[in-house]
């Protein structure tokens, strides 16, 4: 049981990375981005392309670090993929969503367009890499560490938690202490007044997509390291992402973090009672329950 909770925290931390981007985009660009899961997949596959393609061609050694399942290639591929997916997210905004904003389109149009963007991303992945599961390092299974209380955890998973912790910490510092971060929060709070204060909200929107895309990419790669890569991995994450976002109150980054952890743990713990194939349904049930009984989420009291 404790082991399932630990695995749940690992999964939840990955969900959190996606949910934070989703909630930031909802708070600032003001629509539910259905392509967010596929941005996670895109991140995982860009990193795969770097690890097995570009970096092997230019001769970066494939050696791995001690007990971990990856090495220098992944260290390089990780930030490159984050930047690339940030670019993809911004590109979609500029060629698609910005046009809709200028037209004053309704939220449903935005949501449907993002669903279209999701299909485009997934089809590109299917065309380039096929429909099979892939691994960054096939055939390499590192032994799990034995922790007290019979917890087995792989060194990779400890590193995943560490990376998520660092990324969220950096984002927190950015939002709390930098001029651009504060302007992002101001825009999420009151877009009209942000404009009135001379903040270029279009620029803020670009930053938001960039950060959301980069965080999603990180989540996708970490899931790829923990489990496997699959063209539908991001799509399958979509329900947990939305559940985490709604649970943590839409627009609240810290809520998304907590929401992600709760959903991750609930999904893993459920496998003790249910078949693992029902995992996505657990997130779905939690989402429905929140919407029925606490539609503003756990941090919803102070909202306007």
């Amino acid at each position, binding site marked *: 049981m404790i082991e399932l909770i630990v695995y749940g925290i690992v999964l939840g931390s990955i969900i959190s990375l996606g949910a934070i981007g989703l909630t930031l985009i909802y708070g600032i660009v003001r629509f539910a981005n259905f392509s967010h899961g596929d941005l996670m997949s895109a991140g995982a596959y860009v990193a795969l392309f770097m690890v097995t393609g570009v970096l092997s061609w230019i001769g970066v050694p494939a050696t791995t670090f001690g007990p971990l399942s990856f090495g220098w290639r992944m260290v390089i591929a990780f930030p490159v993929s984050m930047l690339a997916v940030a670019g993809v997210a911004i590109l979609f905004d500029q060629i698609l969503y910005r046009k809709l904003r200028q037209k004053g389109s309704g939220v449903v149009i935005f949501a449907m367009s993002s669903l279209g963007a999701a299909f485009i991303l997934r089809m590109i992945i299917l065309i380039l890499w096929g429909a099979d599961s892939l691994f960054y390092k096939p055939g390499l299974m590192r032994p799990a560490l034995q922790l007290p209380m019979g917890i087995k955890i792989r060194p990779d998973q400890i590193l995943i938690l560490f990376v998520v912790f660092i990324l969220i910490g950096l984002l927190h510092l950015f939002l709390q202490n930098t001029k651009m971060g504060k302007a992002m929060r*101001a825009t999420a*709070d009151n877009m009209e*007044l*942000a*404009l*009135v204060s*001379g903040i*270029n909200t279009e620029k803020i929107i670009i930053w938001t997509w960039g950060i959301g895309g980069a965080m999603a990419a990180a989540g996708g790669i970490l899931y790829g390291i923990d489990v496997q890569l699959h063209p539908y991995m991001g799509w399958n994450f979509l329900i947990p992402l939305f559940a985490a976002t709604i649970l943590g109150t839409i627009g609240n980054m810290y809520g998304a973090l907590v929401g992600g952890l709760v959903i991750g743990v609930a999904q893993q713990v459920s496998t003790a009672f249910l078949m693992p194939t029902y995992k996505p349904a657990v997130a779905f049930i939690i989402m429905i329950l929140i919407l029925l009984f606490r539609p503003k989420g756990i941090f919803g009291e102070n909202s306007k």
Partner: protein
Amino acid sequence: MTILKTEGITAGYTKVDILHEVNIRLKSGEIVSVIGPNGAGKSTLLKTIFGILKPREGNVTLKNEDITGLKPDRIARKGISYVPQVDNIFPSMTIQENLEMGAFIRNDDYSQRLDEIYDLFPILKERRKQKAGQLSGGQRQMVAMGRALMVDPRVLLLDEPSAGLSPILVSDIFEKIIEINETGVSIIIVEQNAREALKMANHGYVLAMGKNVLDDKGDALLTNEEVGRLYLGG
């Protein structure tokens, strides 16, 4: 000397014009009050001056520069600040952060300006770490004005600063507005609270149905019989 004027402003929302050829003139260092019944187009006038709405006809001139149709962030950089009537703070941010956002377009060191704002509103300094959304109506209004003042504007546009405040707070806020004016900021204030607004105004304008009806010195309008009957409650 005229610092800001509108000439023949016709503006409104899609298809419906709310303002019809409105002319306003603000002299440097003065306060202009715009009064009139609900729906007269007073708020629309401020939004048009600040570039939130684009006028269909007419011009807005700052000093000798035509600023008609510029975007709000450009107009803010020209030295005009605007305080909306509602939703005029960032509720989940602290007071200090609200003021910092007011200085967003400044790239210089604005700490001295911040101190000046805190001198003007000492209560804000005391509570600077508190979230603006938790404040009372009067204090929110102070945050809103403080935010607008951070850029050291030449012209301040105030949309109904007394709306929703108790009578004691109203006179507090109006005193602060006079203090702000005394530091050299020219002010256009739009008000329902016509008597108070005219008392402190150098010049007043009466708008009705989106048109200029009357304009005169503030005290002259206060004693004007028709204005008294229609807008000052007898």
